[in-house]
């Protein structure tokens, strides 16, 4: 069947099997591999894209169901070469490690901030609660989204510290100059 939709602002028209999932359409047909896939059961959310501005799990949407709609993927987050504040925030606050869940997390964050520019931490946690990150423990993702909320224009200046790390150290780094070099 033939479908057409808008992806990251571009009209696309394709001939596909009716059963093709949106995630596979985006990845395999359009070649936009920033959208990932991580489970069989709509639990993990690595496949989240925005459909008409709303986060959807693209593994649970048929490409045919997205026909006529406006789809935004991670590749469409930056505009005119400038990173979205959410993308900057994830780099500033270490909101990613392996990077696999990151595109979905960032798109959910973008949708949240569009609706609610100043969410509290609980609202952020709820917004991303349908998505799994196995690396970060989520707190740095919350910080990343707060960074984006605090920098709607993507300013580069550093944010004030929002939490604390207590350091207790009185042991010096050993003298390393004499360590033997082994070939």
């Amino acid at each position, binding site marked *: 069947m033939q479908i057409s939709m808008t992806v990251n602002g571009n009209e696309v028209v394709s001939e596909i099997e009716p059963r093709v999932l949106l995630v596979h359409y985006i990845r395999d047909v359009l070649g936009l591999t920033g959208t990932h896939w991580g489970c*069989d059961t709509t639990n993990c959310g690595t496949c989240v894209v925005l459909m008409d501005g709303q986060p959807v799990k693209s593994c649970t949407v048929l490409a045919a169901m997205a026909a006529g709609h406006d789809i935004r993927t991670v590749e469409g987050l930056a505009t005119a070469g400038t990173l979205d504040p959410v993308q900057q925030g994830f780099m500033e606050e*270490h909101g990613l490690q392996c990077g696999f869940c990151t595109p979905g997390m960032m798109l959910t964050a973008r949708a949240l901030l569009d609706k609610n520019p100043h969410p509290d931490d609980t609202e952020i946690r709820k917004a991303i609660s349908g998505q799994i990150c196995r*690396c970060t*423990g*989520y*707190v740095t993702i919350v910080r990343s989204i707060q960074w984006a909320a605090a920098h709607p224009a993507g300013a580069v200046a550093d944010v004030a510290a929002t939490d604390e790390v207590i350091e207790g150290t009185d042991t010096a780094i050993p003298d390393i100059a004499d360590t033997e*070099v082994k070939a």
Partner: protein
Amino acid sequence: MTVIHDRPGNPAAGDADRPIGFGRIQRKEDPRFVRGKGNYIDDMVLPGMLHGAILRAPVAHARLVSIDTTNALAHPKVLAVITGKDLVALNLAWAPTLSADVQAVLVTDKVRFQGQEVAFVVAEDRYAARDALELIDVEYDLLPPVIDARKALDPDAPLIRDDLEGRTDNRIFDWEMGDEAETEAIFAAADVVVAQEIVYPRVHPAPMETCGAVADFDAVSGKLTLYETTQAPHAHRTLFAIVAGIPEHKIRIVSPDIGGGFGNKVGIYPGYILAVVGSIVTGKPVKWVEDRSENLMSTSFARDYIMQGEIAATRDGRILALRTSVLADHGAFNATAQPTKNPAGFFSIFTGSYDLKAAYCKVRGVYTNKAPGGVAYACSFRVTEAVYLVERMVDILARKLDMDPAELRLKNFIKPEQFPYANKTGWVYDSGNYEKAMRLSMEMAGYEALRREQAEKRERGELMGIGVAFFTEVVGAGPRKHFDIVGLGMADGAELRVHPTGKAVVRLSVQSQGQGHETTFAQIVAEELGIPPENIDVVHGDTDQTPFGLGTYGSRSTPVSGGAVALVARKVREKAKLIAAAMLETRPEDLEWEKGRWFVKGDPGAGKTIEEIAMAAHGTMTLPEGIDGNLDAEVTYDPPNLTFPFGAYICVVDIDPGTGHVKVRRFIAVDDCGTRINPMIIEGQVHGGLTDGVGMALMEIIEFDEAGNCLGGSFMDYLIPTAMEVPDWETGFTVTPSPHHPIGAKGIGESATVGSPPAIVNAVVDALAPYGVIHMDMPCTPARVWEAMQGRPRPPI
């Protein structure tokens, strides 16, 4: 003690005050990931690439009667259907595991676990490949399965591994460490002895990206290029040479960006081998990427230890000895990835952080009709199980003695002046200051106030628990003379080239799965040579481009490869010194180093920067005798000992007495990983591990029913923490450098995964003290907590 109450800034790249060397800088890999430009295995597309899918057994134990592939082969988009019989002809039906066993690549004789590989379809697209699986007819003759490890050695237990010659039972190994007689003598004379069965159930690393491969065999050159999700590309290359009979110089393993590993991507899975066979058979590249159920049901699980713990002490709380007997369920094939001489990994570190008089452990490994594996999920070769055992036993002892669990630990810690400390099972702990870390965590937690709050709440019938745990990790194997994987010594290489303009490239044998190697290792070179990290490219994950080494698992990247990188940079620095001396027309011994340049002692103005030296090295000047015209070096680092990171964790939970639901209210983690290269990355590693701990302690378990059906085969059943289940982590640190490591660093990647489960379970059990609960096994799900509250705690397996 210095207490700093603010978080250091994170200057964006380009800022003048950004550290050149160690410190908090943004990650070099992030720009591609936030743009969706990572390159994971399923993103790879090669010209003419085909897609593979695996037919898996629906039952746990059954004789294979017949396979009919006629209809599948008739599918218009199917190019090949490969069965065990085909592999027998290629001598590929069985492959060696990483633990001196063999594993079936495809079933030839009988199915030994649910989800085992039965046939492989190669088709034009992934949908067609899946369709064709439905067209294969397989007839099975069911056999009774062995599911409960406790029954694996019963006289009437079915024999699982009848493929192994001379095998008459399901025993894999018996292994012991420590002095049994000495330990028994101390137990016999001790004032207090406490015993408890402690079960660490089967869990799964479940990285967000599943395992996969793209195999590309060039029949003309005979070269195999295998892109695969591997944490250990070089070890895989050697093993593929052995398995497939392809000469090793004709194999190139490429590990692209990996979407999380946690130990899941160490082993060689049948799917990788089948992709290679598919490419050889069809003459085209073949991609195979497993789905989530395949990942959870067939790839390397973790834990599955049933431990009988015993602890002996004096009446006033001096811990004397520990003893344990372990039943280890390894599944249908012994495919754990661990050093050859350590069938139970580094479990013998179960002596923990305490100064003991004696210790003894024995571990029996058995086969069951479950998926193979066992060493995975950030376990540091079974240190997770060891730390969980000792930290539960110490808490149980504290209850018996009516002592505060923190005080009992403080009383028994190995003292700073005792390091290096030889424990009772053969380890030499490199450095530590346990009391300092414990007291810092108590200070951060407000421990005394928490205990007062708890007492008040108990009066009101509210269930609040405070869990304390202290761990000592052992990470960074070798030395190579003691530790090997299938005969390959556990050392790692590094190559460094400084180009004429002073920009550098460093090549590693280890492979990141999200740990930030491209940043951390650039920072080590930057610290040693004064070249800014953004001018240093880190190359890894491609065996044709990197030196040999054993890879990333067991938190060994920084302890081993970090040492290699520091030493290779120093080698370059020493070479630069000789060249600088020639440039300055002085003697090398008259030069002094400051970060980035050599200068004449007493004349700081007369010096040469590393950039100037690099240009001179490649230029036309006459170089000193014996110096090649470059600024390159290579090193293979064989660590003299492992490193022993440690930490003090305190967890506060609230339990709903009506439902048994556990809420982690606070978690305080003080970690010591020696010298800190990038505090931001370290904090991230700790956060991730703590979340693993919440998962294992409260939610995650791979269960089986009596027929051997896996009950944790999807994310509907295998629950992983989301943002709603984790608190705002409170992290702190102390710095006790490793005395033998070139930069004093220890590993950090698995510390929190090791240390957090006992802290959480200790908190749960502490909360349930009014109900007389002394122990409950993980996961502390509402139903299981409820059962414990009713006086009916049950083991999960």
